[in-house]
């Protein structure tokens, strides 16, 4: 669509997968994801939202494995509002009601290469104990009006959350024309990226 010599947008391709999660107390969870991005971003191809299969823990491992592929390409004119991946995990509670088990968000990595992100998950807390009890009883836990809330800072100060577990996501990032547009997104040598990714994980 643009001539390569004279691009007007840059492209960010995200491949990867929601590898799995570590929720010590819960089982049979599934995961929804969506992206939050700024005004100057638009997805060109790929799925913007998705929902994984329900996965159960194996007897040995305590990890939940989804291995749910992510694939999306964004075009953008401005790094401001860099896309964020918002994941929310749901699963049945004791009574079989589908309740939320965690929200989390992470920025899509900036640098090309392979990255692994471990997203800490959390859920909003009920405002008071009785509600906690009734919410537990009726399977109506507090939820965010919109999961995308977790990708923004605005308004979060009014909430109280409890941490739940972790979701691991791996990304393979490719960018196009970033340098041409004057944005240098850091090291391009794979080894450097690798080490950086590892340090992130740490």
């Amino acid at each position: 669509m643009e001539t390569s010599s004279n691009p007007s947008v840059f492209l960010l391709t995200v491949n990867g997968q929601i590898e799995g999660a570590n929720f010590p107390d819960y089982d049979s969870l599934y995961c929804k994801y969506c992206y939050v991005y700024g005004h100057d971003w638009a997805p060109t191809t790929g799925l913007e939202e998705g929902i994984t299969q329900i996965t159960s823990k194996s007897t040995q491992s305590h990890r939940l494995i989804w291995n749910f592929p992510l694939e999306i390409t964004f075009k953008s004119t401005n790094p401001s509002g860099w896309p964020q991946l918002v994941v929310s995990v749901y699963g049945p509670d004791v009574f079989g009601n589908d309740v939320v088990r965690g929200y989390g968000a992470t920025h899509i990595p900036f640098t090309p290469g392979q990255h692994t992100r471990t997203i800490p998950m959390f859920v909003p807390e009920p405002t008071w104990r009785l509600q906690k009890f009734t919410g537990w009883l009726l399977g109506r836990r507090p939820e965010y009006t919109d999961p995308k809330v977790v990708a923004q800072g605005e308004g979060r100060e009014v909430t109280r959350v409890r941490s739940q577990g972790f979701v691991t996501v791996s990304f393979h990032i490719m960018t196009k024309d970033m340098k041409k547009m004057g944005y240098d997104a850091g090291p391009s040598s794979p080894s450097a990226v690798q080490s950086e990714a590892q340090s992130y994980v740490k």
Partner: protein
Amino acid sequence: MERMAASSEIREKLRNKRRALQDTLVKNKNEDDIQALVPSARFNVDQQPTAMKEAEGSDEDPGETLRRTFRAQRQRRKKKLLEQSFVQECHDAEDAEEVPNARRHSANEGSADRADDSVVSTRPPTGSQRALSVRSEDSSSSQHLDTYVTRHLQEKLRAARSKGESLQQQEASEVSAEPVSRLQRLKNRDTVTRFDREAEPISAGRQDDPLALRSRVKFREAGRRVVKDLPTAEEAFNFFTFNYEPEPPSQQEGVSRKRQKRRERVKKDKGEDSQEEAEVEEDAEAEEDNQDQNEYQSEDAPLVRNEDDLFAIDHSPQDFVEMRKAEYVAYRKRVQRDRELLFTPSFRTVPTSVKLPENMKPRFLEDEGLYVGERPPVSLTNENILENRILKMAEGNKWFGDDGKVIALPDPIKESSTRPPLFHMEGDLDPALQTVYRKALKSKYANLYIAGAADPEGDYQLDVDVSGLIFSHHPLFSREHVLASRLAQLYDQHLSRQHNNLTGHLTDKLNGLRNALQNMMKIHGEQGSSEALRQRISEYSLEVRNTRQLRDTEQEKDRTLLRSVIKVWKEIKALREFQKFTNTPFKLYLRRENVDRASDERDYEGEILAEVLELEAESEGEYQKKLAEYKKQLEDWKLWRRKQKAKRKKKKKKKKGLAQEDTEEEDQDQDESESEGPFEEGPAKPQPPERPDVDSMEQWVREKASRIRRKPGEAILIPELSASGSITASELCPRAEIARREDVSRRSLFIKILYNDKEVSRTDSRSLSADFRVHFGQIFNLKIINCPHSINLQVFEEVGSSCSLLAQVFVPVPDPSVVTGSAPIEEFEFSSNQRVMFDHEGVGSDVPLSFESDGSNRLTLLTSGKLSCCVSWGIGEEGVPLAPPVSQQPGGTHSGRWHLDAVSYIGASGLYDMKKIGEWATQSRLDPNDPKNTSIMQLLKVASSGEVTAPDYFRLEHLQEEFNFVTDEELERSRRFRLLRLRNQEAPEFRNYKFVPLLEREVSDKVFQDYEKRLKDGEIIDTREHLDPHRALVAKYLQKIRESVINRFILAKHFYQLSDLVTEEEIPSIGILGINLFKLAESKRPLKPQRKERKKVTAQNLSDGDIKLLINVIRAHNIPIRKPLGNKPGQSSQSALQGSDWYLSQVQVRPFVEVSFQRTVLQTTTADGPNPSWNEELQLPFSAPNGDYSTSSLQSVKDEVFINIFDEVLYETGPGGKERGTSIHTQIEKHWLGSVKIPFSTVYSQSKIDGAFKVNTPAVLLGYSREHGGSSSVYDQWRSTHGGTFLRLFLTIEPQLVPGESVREKFDSQEDERLLQAAEKFEKEAAQGFPDRPCITTVTDLSGKTVFITRYVRPLNPPQEFLDAFPNNPQEATTLVARFVSLIPSLPDQVSFSGTCDLWSTCDQFLTLLAGDEEEHAVLLCNYFLFLGKRAWLVIGTAIPEGTTVYVLTHEQSGYFIWNPSSGQFYNKDDSFCPLQTVGCLVNADNVWYNVQENPSPLNTNFDITKSNMWKPFFSRSFSHPGLSSVQPEELVYRPIDRAAAAELQDRVEKILKEKIMEWRPRHPTRWNRYCNTTLKQFLPKLEQSRGQDVAEGHRLELQNLLGDYRIAGFPLHLPFSEIRPIIEAVHSTGVHNIHSANVEFALAVYVHPYPNNVLSVWVYLASLVRT
């Protein structure tokens, strides 16, 4: 060897066999399903042992392979590798003939197998990942198993070969030890996943290309290698390491390299034996190999064989593939096998002997008195299991301690929690524990940083070298120590004196002086005295005397020192004697230096003589001086005496005369006493000075000399103190002394280093030695940034765990020149006045102490000592001293320190005061050449020139410019940045702008056009657009209010509450809980399903085309019907019309509905009659502005749904000239009958609208009349006058959108807080009881403040003209007032403020703005009614189509009336066509009543507000009306009617409309019928007067008469005037301009009727005339 014999016989056989085998091999290679077949292949191999055994001996290549495979296979099957030796044993028994070979093979097979596996496992394609995972999982147990296996291997080897046992073992152990980690993993893996593994060799082997050949090559090669170069253990090790290279490619490479090598070798071999047939050669080789093997049998080469076997196993299994039944393994067998495989640690306690090395007894450290930490608690069984497990491992014993237990660290878990619970009960808290708030104090060193400390070169370092400590007294000193230390001190003193040798110096000096003096005396004697010389002599002699005196004191000191040294030493000796033990190592030796007695005596005497002589000379001199003085005095006295005598003589002469004159002289003395007394006192007679006594003088000198000097001939005593004496061992000492010594050993000392009163470091704690010296020898490097003020070394003494401060030593801050290395270690004395007493031998401190037996001569000793340390500045890497520059040396005065730093000198705020900086600069003598100071100097230079005044600003961020992204100018200039900034500021044009282009050039200026236009419009008022200057101003004002309110909303939108972010269930009450529980029991599929709400869609993930507007046009009532137009003039008789014939034949009306929304126009089919029923659904697509489907954006959609009713009229036009008679042309015209406008915002906020809408029909429809047919009952009559056409519609949006939530009115308020809370509560309760009934108690005024609603209601005067118009007819006045109110244009707040927030303006604001919502109209109308003396209320309820709205209720004799303030219509309470649907609450000036009746429709509502069971009052007895004052003005002032302006406006509107109509008909000529125009114009004022009622008929007839044979269709439009645009739109929507017949003419008339306060009523009369 036996094999040799057999080989010739069976060679032939074997050859055939081998060929067959090779065939199978090749065949197998080609097959792909080898993996699956492997096990069976193996079994197959197993099944044919006899055949293969034959082959074994002679046929090297496949035969050997096979044999090995068999064995491996068999072993595996039977014993699972771990017990190969056993297998071997029985196997050997079975076929004894192969024993020698077999043993060796079997010994190696296990490891060979493993090696093989290892090769494979690291290859990437063959599932290495699994191997890895296995490895990692089992690494814990691997060690154990590994050792297990190793042991077995060793055992087996031992059994097989007795000869090379030792060698073998060594090697085996080497193998197992060296690559232990690798082997471990391998072996372990093998045991765990062996069945998986077995397949892998095949896949590995398959890689080989010419397989048959290569495998053969390999075998041969392997054999060759065995023969030729037996690899050493190291080689073997290398082999293994090779395999384990982490990177697969290199490994592959290695393997392939090996293969290649082999191949080469094979070639070489072939070259050698080229004549021989290949097979023969092979056989020969095999034989050779066998021989070699036998030869080397004694030697151990297991690893070599490994390699051999490795390749054997690679290929052999595939050679013999055969399907076979699964073999059943008996349970017991399996259990046994499992037992071999698995290890279950026992629970039983392990005997201690096993855990300890042989011949060792457990040793319990606790019993030996050593401290052993508490072990963490572990249950006994677990411990046993662990021990059992460990014991199985190699070197398991190392895990056990001497006591036979597993080595364990002490339990790290504290018993008590580290953080004690806090109790917040204020009262209970111990007052001592209560916290006291202290304001933070600024450290006085806070701003005393060394200038330039921030930059790296200003990195200063102080080195504090603490070398040691010596106590001169310590409380633990024994008496002997006290003496010893005194002795040491004295000795030190002595030494230092001796070193200085002052006495010697002085003696020399004295001698020199004496010599000089003598010389001088000689000269003096020879040459006579000169004054100068005499002076010098006297000076010299004085000097000699002084020097001699000094020497004498020094000598005396020396002497006493020596004496006291000896005395103390004697005391020590005595003490030692007494206490019978020695505590100190000191020994004093007195070295005698014998002197020559004669010379000594001579010297001594000479000295004395000289001294005596000098003394004599001195005393002589003194005597002479005194004598001279005496003489002088005597002279004086004599003189005086003579005078006295003379006096006396005179007296005597008078008395006695002159007698006895001669004797007088002699008796003088006698008389003197007598005579003097009575006489006046004269000077005493001077005594003649005594002559110095030379003898006594000599005596004194000698005495002195004997006191201070060595006696002549006495030996010179030189004391020498040595510490060589031995100290009595503790055992020999008395108890008290032992106690003291123990006490000493318990003590240790350390030194804290405090820099500027802050502890920076401390030395290690060193124990006090018996001689009370402590050596630290530590150097501390202090990196400093603060000016050094004090360096303090604190000496701490530790006894056990407690430590106490002994003393402090303040060390001066060193000079900058003092740097490490050159600085000597100095000793600083310290002392402490602590009182310490002991009950043992220690003397204590500050305790009186006596060494005398009688207790006299007590002394009190204080703890004291010397600390040797050194403080100096550090030296940097390049030898640069890390000391601050000299000028900044802070060790100086106070003022000097201040000069360091400008900030500390004048304070930070003063930095911009030039005067102060100048002052500081001069005072601190800044170096102008220092590059650091250039900026300051420059500043000062400028400042001193007086041109620059100090800036009156305060710079907070000095680096702001450096951090700027781009310069401000660039930021301004760049269009892209501008766009980004505007978007960020949420400017309305750019609020949701997408894709701001990345490059500057791609941002076009067009983007800003709208925005700039708006900005420009802000200043210029476009009067042309508005036609009315006042309205233009008002519009501007409104715009501004709108903006400010929007801004406030945008701001408010960013304040979130929990409910905005988190959806949470309401706290359920018990009832709801019960219902929920009940619901659980509800049937899943009820017989009568309930209607479910449509799913609501959040507006975020929508796009164009997703949303549709559904309009269901159901039916209409009471549509005007056509009137037959008299074709001829005069034919207007009603009778003709009422003829039933006509009624039947003539079409009354053929109406259809046309709906236009967002440029889409759809229409229904045409129906018949005045009450048509369409029942059609129209779908109109909806697209949001800018594709933004957010709630806020949807709310601000201003589009309206236009629903027009038209009459379809068919005209048969005259047939054309040519086709006359053959065709009929029908022309369709549509005549506008009325319209309904519904704003989209209403539909959006209500999500569905269902009801009958009153169609806005023009007052007069030319050619139409309302239906009067049928029974003309009273009701119908009333309806015709009041009602009109109604259209029943159903509107909704598909899918249902979540309506925007009203912006929380979190505005401040001037209302009482109690009132606000009550209002909130009231509304909440109302909402709970009846969620669909609106209840409003507080509203927001124009300034955004919350106001209680009753404050708006107050009687207000309508314009006086209205009151005057109908003085006698209040009813008329009422309608007039209502009409006036309805003429003020409506402007829904929702649209203007893009949020569902109602702003209520007061009536004067409303009249000034001339625009408002329903509530403003209602408030104004209500206030007028109240003024007119009516009982009126505001009704808050829901109506069609407005939704929640405000109406007015009046109560008159005839009943309750409901007024629609926007239209001026009123309805009876019982009117079923009343647009008001529900009644929520009533408001008047006093109270608010909430409707608690069951049916909220006005029809069924009882409006008797006194009934509290129907109306719930806000102010009740419990909460009475606080007397809220009104926000309305007392009186409204109206501007007078401006008729001239109205006339001007009228002309302009007419002109504009005419232009527009012509514009809309671009292809057709537009002809205006002037005659008709004027007629219509005359007619319009009448319509205004009658308010559009009951004038149509007469007027039409009049018109008809005038126009004759024109077919006329027309109507007057009536609008309140706000702007020109609505008028144009209204005209356009009627579609009059769409008549395209050729002979059409148009008529247009405009009339603007002015009302007070510039309220204008606009009438537009439109007509189309077609000549018939």
